[in-house]
């Protein structure tokens, strides 16, 4: 990764010399670039998200404290009205203040709607409805932060649904879907960003990464959070994510023109398989590596930071996993670590 990228002018000049853009492209861009503003940094968006959630909490205290909504049906109706108001507001008043009000109203509305629905029809119905609601909101609520959070809420609703209908093994299907979405979404981001769906790519892709990390968290804290929240047969998720990791490595080799049958490629793939066996009970490690590789390939420091942060969190939380003894965990971690060091120092990586 480059610390100091060249100027836009130089990049556009190079594209022109390779006939990838028209000859007068750089000159035209000079005029239009001044009118384009770069999006705010991720931590500015996090500040906005924090405030929106705080405002949501305060609005919910207001609704609860003043008892203006007292029945489940009332909560459903009030929730729908708030969501619709939020969508209308967001679509028609495009200032930062109203954007944030729309976010807070929408989240308040969603909370009222889902809890009202849950009280009236049960948790299974509420979580299924929440998935549909979030999918709809991704489409109709034109805000990247809202789309990002909708992806997370949909994943959360899916997890609640699985535990509620008592098929915790279905979590592996969810991790598989999220892993495929992460790898495919980021690998094809350059196509998505230049299509009509450009505004959906980034929030959904980031949302999928955080959702994957969130879904895998119980695999490290098995039995700690609650007896209900389990992650049985964690190795199944390791296998599905391992396949995705190998597919990603192959794509990376092909992208960078590595020869298929070279000892380095075969060595790396074999090393990956051995590594997957060693960390079979810790799928979070595999997820972190997948996101790390994607982050490096696309020069995305935020993804790299997220992957490292999640790895540190996962390994710390893994200590508390009650189903596996510390001795077994220790053996698996030392074994996988030594394997990586062996690969590093045996030079079994492409040169």
């Amino acid at each position, binding site marked *: 990764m480059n610390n100091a990228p060249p100027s836009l002018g130089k990049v556009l000049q190079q594209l022109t010399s*390779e006939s990838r853009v028209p000859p007068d492209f750089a000159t035209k861009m000079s005029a239009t*670039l001044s009118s384009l503003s770069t999006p705010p940094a991720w931590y500015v968006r996090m500040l906005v998200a924090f405030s929106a959630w705080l405002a949501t909490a305060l609005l919910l205290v207001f609704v609860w404290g003043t008892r203006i909504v007292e029945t489940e049906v009332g909560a459903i109706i009030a929730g729908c009205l708030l969501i619709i108001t939020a969508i209308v507001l967001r679509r028609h008043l495009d200032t*930062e203040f109203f954007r944030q009000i729309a976010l807070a109203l929408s989240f308040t509305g969603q909370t009222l709607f889902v809890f009202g629905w849950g009280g009236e029809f049960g948790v299974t119905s509420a979580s299924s409805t929440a998935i549909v609601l979030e999918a709809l909101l991704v489409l109709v609520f034109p805000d990247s932060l809202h789309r990002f959070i909708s992806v997370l809420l949909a994943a959360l609703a899916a997890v609640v649904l699985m535990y509620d209908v008592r098929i915790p093994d279905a979590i592996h299907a969810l991790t598989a879907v999220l892993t495929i979405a992460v790898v495919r979404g980021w690998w094809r981001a350059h196509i998505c960003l230049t299509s009509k769906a450009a505004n959906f790519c980034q929030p959904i892709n980031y949302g999928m990464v955080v959702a994957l990390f969130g879904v895998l968290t119980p695999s490290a804290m098995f039995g700690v959070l609650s007896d209900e929240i389990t992650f049985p047969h964690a190795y199944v998720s390791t296998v599905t994510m391992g396949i995705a990791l190998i597919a990603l490595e192959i794509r990376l080799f092909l992208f960078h023109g590595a020869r298929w049958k070279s000892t380095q490629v075969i060595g790396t793939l074999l090393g990956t398989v051995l590594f997957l066996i060693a960390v079979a009970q810790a799928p979070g490690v595999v997820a972190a590596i997948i996101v790390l590789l994607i982050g490096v390939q696309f020069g995305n420091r935020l993804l790299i930071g997220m992957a490292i942060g999640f790895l540190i969190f996962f390994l710390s939380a893994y200590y508390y996993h009650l189903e596996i003894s510390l001795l077994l965990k220790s053996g698996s971690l030392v074994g996988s670590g030594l394997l990586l*060091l062996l690969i590093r120092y045996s030079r079994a990586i492409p040169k």
Partner: protein
Amino acid sequence: MLPKLGQQPAQTNPLELPATRERLQILAMTGRLDATAFQRAMQIAGHIPAPHTWHRFIDAMLTYLGMTLVVVGIVFFFAYNWTEMHRFTKFGLIAAAIVSSISITALKGLDTLTGKASLFAAAVLTGVLLAVYGQAYQTGADAYDLFLVWAVLIAGWVFIGRLTALWMLWLILINLALILHWGEVVNPRLGWDGAMVSTLAPLIWISYLLTDASLSALVFILNAIALVMYEWYLRRGIEWLGGRWMPRAIACLALVALMVPTLVFILRSPDLDRDDTMLKLAPLLFTLSTTLILWFYHTRGRDLFIIAIFYVGIIGVVTAAIGRQIGDDYGGYSLLGLVVIGLSTTAAALLKKTSQYWQIRS
């Protein structure tokens, strides 16, 4: 002097701006670049790494990840407290691991990736050795002793290591030693329930200890000194200090130490802590320190992340103060929600203007 935030950015030639990932992405999203041209532009700008960069990354990843997993595995192994294993065997194993790590550092040198990773591993393993010592002899020493002795023992490596991660580990150890010393010796509050929380949820326990305003003032001073020293040495051109993650992490620690007692002061019951002078001073310390830090990072340090987290702190404190006044009048919470949104809108606008102002100045 504070920047003139109302000033508009100068009309510099946009083609001279660095081709950041975000700028290229905007060109793609607004239809100026097609998918192939966008991907090629990312390659030219160096955002998609060339094969040799990948090799460097893979080397680093395998070394750091491999070392991390081994060290964490060793920690887990000794936490298992295998009773069949004699304590001398345990000491021998850890000592051998420390000697091996240091030998690798000595052989490879402090400027190499392997040397740095090995030194860091040795520093962590020193803590494991101390923990196993306490486990074997049941010394009855307080937990803060472990962190303090650990910090003292690795101090030499920290000073010669030229590694920010090692400095961060050292700072965390000193923070823990100070906080636990306060909680165990100066102002012990560890009942049976506290003992359980401190074991199962150490972060919650530490946050609880920070509600003591005198302790949090000390923690703030410690981290503020670390922050000032970091920025001072960075300006003196110490190359290995590059990267902003460490000052940002220290700033987060400092903010927590400022906020916790301030929130306690605002939300406390009126009949509690009447004589706690430090608690009464907490809002003043918060105001003065926040102003100073914001001034420094606006005008000198130029770190938008640190400014943003302190804005979050201000929003939190102002919200708590107004919330306290509202009390049980639930109708007021809808207005408070609007106030929060107003504050964060202002903060986001200020951050944008600050960024533009820096662009003008650079």
